[in-house]
């Protein structure tokens, strides 16, 4: 049990995530891609007569069940398999974050990820604008880390490689050059 409660090493997690690809294919010829769910929710709730949302989303219901499973699995792991020890963080990052008044003692720092934070400029930009960029960007790119970086690369698709490289470029630019200014806001 102790082994399960410890943080799992990258090779265990990576193997499980990689095996999701054949699992979905073998269960019913389904292609791994989580951001498509955001589109299915639009199609189901607010299609607004837009051609992009006019399709039979019910045929893609499997993916919504998959996403629902992620929520349940995360709940199970947090409730019953949680790591009792403090998380290990690179000391450089701990120092940097403490300069912004953020304690790196939690997987999701409360100074950012809380309803109180949502009412601050910093929290609003990070949660609302950040979420918008995720939703807009993934659909514009035609997939996210699962659809392009894992499923697309597994099938050796070069457009997915380009998308993955651009994900990383955007992430590097934001984390190193733009986010420090956002984190200084309060």
């Amino acid at each position, binding site marked *: 049990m102790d082994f399960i409660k410890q943080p799992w090493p*990258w090779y265990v997690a990576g*193997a499980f995530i990689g095996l999701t*690809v*054949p699992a979905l*294919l073998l269960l019913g010829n389904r292609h791994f891609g989580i951001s498509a769910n955001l589109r299915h929710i639009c199609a189901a709730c607010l299609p607004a007569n837009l*051609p992009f949302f006019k399709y039979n989303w019910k045929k893609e219901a499997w993916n919504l069940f998959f996403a629902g499973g992620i*929520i349940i*699995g995360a709940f199970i792991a947090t409730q019953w398999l949680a790591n009792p020890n403090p998380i290990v963080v690179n000391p450089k990052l701990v120092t940097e974050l403490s300069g912004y008044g953020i304690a790196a003692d939690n997987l999701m720092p409360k100074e950012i990820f809380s309803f109180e934070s949502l009412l601050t400029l910093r929290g609003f930009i990070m949660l609302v604008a950040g979420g918008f960029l995720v*939703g807009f960007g993934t659909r514009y790119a035609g997939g996210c880390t699962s659809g392009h970086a*894992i499923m697309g690369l597994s099938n050796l698709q070069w457009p997915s490689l380009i998308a993955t490289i651009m994900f990383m470029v955007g992430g590097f630019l934001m984390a190193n050059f733009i986010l420090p200014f956002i984190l200084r806001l309060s």
Partner: protein
Amino acid sequence: MSVKNITAIQQPDTDFEVRSLQTMCVNQSEKELPWWYNFSYMAVGILFGIVFIKAEIISWIRIQEMFRLQSFHMYGVIGTAVVVGIISVFLIKKFNVKTIHGESIDFQPKKFNKGQVYGGLLFGLGWAITGACPGPLFAQVGSGVLVILVVILSAIAGTWTYGYFRDKLPH
């Protein structure tokens, strides 16, 4: 956001390549399976969600470490997943493996369009801010950080906005 009007000829089919571009199942299963068969996908999702928490992939901190080159962890996770995925797809193709219902497994090539560049960059920016791609967003909610519901709603709004401006964006 630059919303440039394309001077190109009106596409006769406004729904161009919608399915193949959007990581949706291009080849629908011909078999009519009962709706509760979807619980099998939910089971895979549950395992997936547990892994997300246990390997701390949902953590904003781990994503910051990744983009600052301060930790190998996330590169190891994604790299291993890709290698396992490549081997799996290779074996499925080589041995013409069928689904458990005996149907053939199909792969569709992804076509390049500029969206993978512009959209990819925009998603990358958002990924580093929120510390989450869409999968971890769902896991974060499950882990009890309910404010992430706001992030998901905003992501849905972003997806909807893309759908609204799709014809005017460069592809």
